[in-house]
């Protein structure tokens, strides 16, 4: 298997960072959540992206999972928006995605 050169981020890390930035740019998403014990991350080469997990899918491409902290919005609509945006951004960047899984980890009640 071809290994990324020293200094260059791995494709998984690059994809995780892209998914994180794309999700955070969407209205309704407040933050990403690293899960219990901060273990929900994509890590490699001394770097990590919290709240996103990218794995190589068995059938090719990548399985991307995100844990979102969002505002009180319609969750299905938000999840669809995030999924479509991540797929579009990944396609432009040359990544093929197999699945995009979204977990709503927390909500922020801004009226409180």
């Amino acid at each position, binding site marked *: 298997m071809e290994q990324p050169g020293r200094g260059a981020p791995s494709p998984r890390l690059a994809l995780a960072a892209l998914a994180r930035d794309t999700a955070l740019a969407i209205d309704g998403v407040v933050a990403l959540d690293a899960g219990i014990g901060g273990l929900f991350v994509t890590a490699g080469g001394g770097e990590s992206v919290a709240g996103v997990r990218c794995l190589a899918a068995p059938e090719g491409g990548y399985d991307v999972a995100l844990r979102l902290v969002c505002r*009180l919005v319609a969750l299905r609509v938000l*999840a669809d928006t995030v999924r479509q945006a991540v797929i579009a951004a990944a396609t432009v960047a040359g990544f093929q995605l197999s699945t*995009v899984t*979204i977990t*709503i*980890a927390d909500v922020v009640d801004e*009226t*409180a």
Partner: protein
Amino acid sequence: MLLLKALARLVELLLMTAIALTGLGVGLYCFSLLISLGPARPDRLLHLPVVRARIGHFLAQLAAPGPTATLAMLGGIAAVVIGLGLLVGLLGSRRERLLVVEDGGDGGLYVRQRTLGQMVRAETVLAPGVTAVKRPKVRLARSGRRGHVKVLAARGSDPDPGTVDAAVHERVDPVLEPLGLRGDVRVRLDEPRAAKEAS
């Protein structure tokens, strides 16, 4: 809970090692009754005669009434509490409870059980006439595909219960229905507030 789990793992490892070593010693001792192991006497290796000499006196005090027995009883109670805590740490579910909203070929959508309660509470508080809301109880099916949310809200003496109930449903139903959850909304009179309003 996380600390309890880590502690349970550590104690589990140490305890298993101790039990394994003791078991090995006892096994060798039993074996030595059939076949001579020469100078390698397991009971001597485990220093069992020394242990007996040291704790024999304590065991005698333990059997008799007195301060040692009280101390032992407190120790026993503490051991039971610690044991129960470790059992919770070992047997408690390590997976967070999630509602499965979608689980298709292109990915899924999951919502944490705790988050569902937060959402329902936040919406209920905003319903006109609601003065307080208890933390909603969310119960999910083992499959995570169905669930039930129990909401207990309090209202003032005005407006009437029907109006408040309808207002709560108006806020909560749009949250629950798209997620396939059933809601059980109960609105009760906030008696201290009602009494204050009446006086």
